[in-house]
């Protein structure tokens, strides 16, 4: 399992009600179910990923986070998780608003476009950065709205979103991933 998932799981409270938005193949959900809380469900767009979640016996809803989060009532989850998908939405601001509406807290992770490797890649090669966390070429990347940890912090400040916790012992320059707990 990805290291990131352990970091995310550590931020959650035992037996809390959780929604994993864009839960992929259900790896994180499975870990959380077995170790933290079995009151968890996921929402996932890709049919083949949904099948993989079903195989793991997870509760998954096939759907599109950009459209389908509105069906959940306010504060219906203790935690809503969004792992490295924010940048892939057409309207990430809307998704963030929905996360903060339906979750008392949201755990959001973003691939950090401000990481030194990314900066160095663009500086030296002059081409779009390709790293472990950003493996795609510019023409086939699902990422529409890349941002850096600093961008995300600035955004939260501007929108009065409280950042409860962040993994910034390693800062914008050194951290390939930003993980935040945010709330309204």
């Amino acid at each position: 399992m990805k290291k990131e998932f352990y970091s995310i799981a550590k931020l959650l409270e035992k037996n809390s009600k959780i929604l994993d938005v864009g839960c992929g193949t259900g790896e994180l959900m499975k870990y959380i179910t077995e170790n933290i809380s079995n009151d968890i469900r996921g929402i996932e767009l890709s049919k083949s990923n949904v099948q993989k979640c079903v195989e793991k016996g997870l509760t998954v809803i096939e759907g599109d986070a950009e459209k389908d989060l509105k069906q959940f009532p306010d504060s219906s989850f203790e935690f809503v998780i969004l792992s490295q998908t924010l940048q892939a939405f057409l309207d990430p601001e809307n998704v963030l608003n929905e996360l903060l509406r339906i979750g008392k807290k949201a755990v959001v992770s973003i691939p950090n476009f401000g990481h030194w490797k990314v900066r160095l890649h663009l500086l030296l090669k002059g081409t779009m950065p390709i790293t472990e966390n950003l493996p795609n070429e510019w023409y086939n990347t699902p990422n529409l709205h890349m941002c850096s940890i600093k961008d995300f912090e600035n955004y939260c400040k501007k929108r009065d979103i409280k950042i409860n916790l962040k993994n910034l012992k390693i800062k914008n320059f050194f951290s390939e991933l930003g993980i935040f707990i945010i709330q309204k």
Partner: protein
Amino acid sequence: MNKFNNIKKIIVKKPLKLDCGQTINNFPLAYETYGKLNDKKNNAILIFHALTGDQFASGINPITEKDGWWSNALGPGKAIDTDKYFIIAANVIGGCMGSFGPSDINPDTKKPYGTNFPVLTINDMVNAQYNLLEHFKIEKLFSVIGGSMGGMQVLQFVSNFPNKAFTAIPIACTASHSAQNIALNELGRQSIMADRNWEDGFYEEKKKQPDKGLAVARMAAHITYLSKAGLQEKFGRKLQERDDLKFSFDADFQIESYLRYQGSVFVDRFDANSYLYITRAMDYFDLTKRFDGNLSKAFENSDTRFFIISFTSDWLYPTSENREIVIALNAIGKNVGFVEISSDKGHDSFLLDVPDFLNTVKNFLNTSYKKIK
């Protein structure tokens, strides 16, 4: 009816007040079971059948001598595993496989009820089948499962009895029958009624059968269970045992021959009045009606874990209608999973060997079962 002498049934003694206002009692409810009820009585699944189904979901149907309608899904080691679970399936009231229906003899007239049989609803069907829980002394079912009209019964069951099923799998269904589906059902009914042999529903006492009308109803309905792509792939413009068009109204095309065959075998096993009554019950189905149009309220008191399944090529009960149920459940924070299975086999997908579908059912049941054990 003699042919039903050897099938299992309970006689429901308790009066059942129907939605139409009439009360019925001492009526037969035919059922079949598969697998064994465990000592804790927590492995029971109630299966609801669709419009033309019956209690013989698996194995060989002793009346038709054909495979049970859900043999693909139900059996030893299958998605609904009879080695593990105790499965109960009943024939709906209004049906024609031994449960109280329009071909039963009316004790007042000593003649078959025909169209004097009361108009039924999905709610009535479910309330009648609830008696099976008492019969088997089951406090809580492990699951309620059904596709199409069976799915509607699943929804109605959970709404009526919010704490009587640990899980529920409504498949390819709707919470409220659409105008298009009412229209298609009306087409079938009018086809039966247009047959001279229908005799206003009293054909049995006149020793007639509206076979032609019923066959046409089945042919029309059968098209709605398939998809355009599925039909095109299977039949295209292929000709039936001939090299060229015959310039006649014979079944030149394979699809014509196929539909005629489907119509002709159907009339051997199904009663025309049952077809009228059951399609009517489907049309009357609107779970939101009692709740001022708010479907969520139908499930407010339920603690059932739902898993809802739809199929990409099902245009009869499309994904959008299944998703409305998901939305209603999410809106009140209920536990619900949902998948749309890719299949070009149309509405019929739930009856066929569609591996992704069968695996989904199997995985959901097996992981849920671990949670209660």
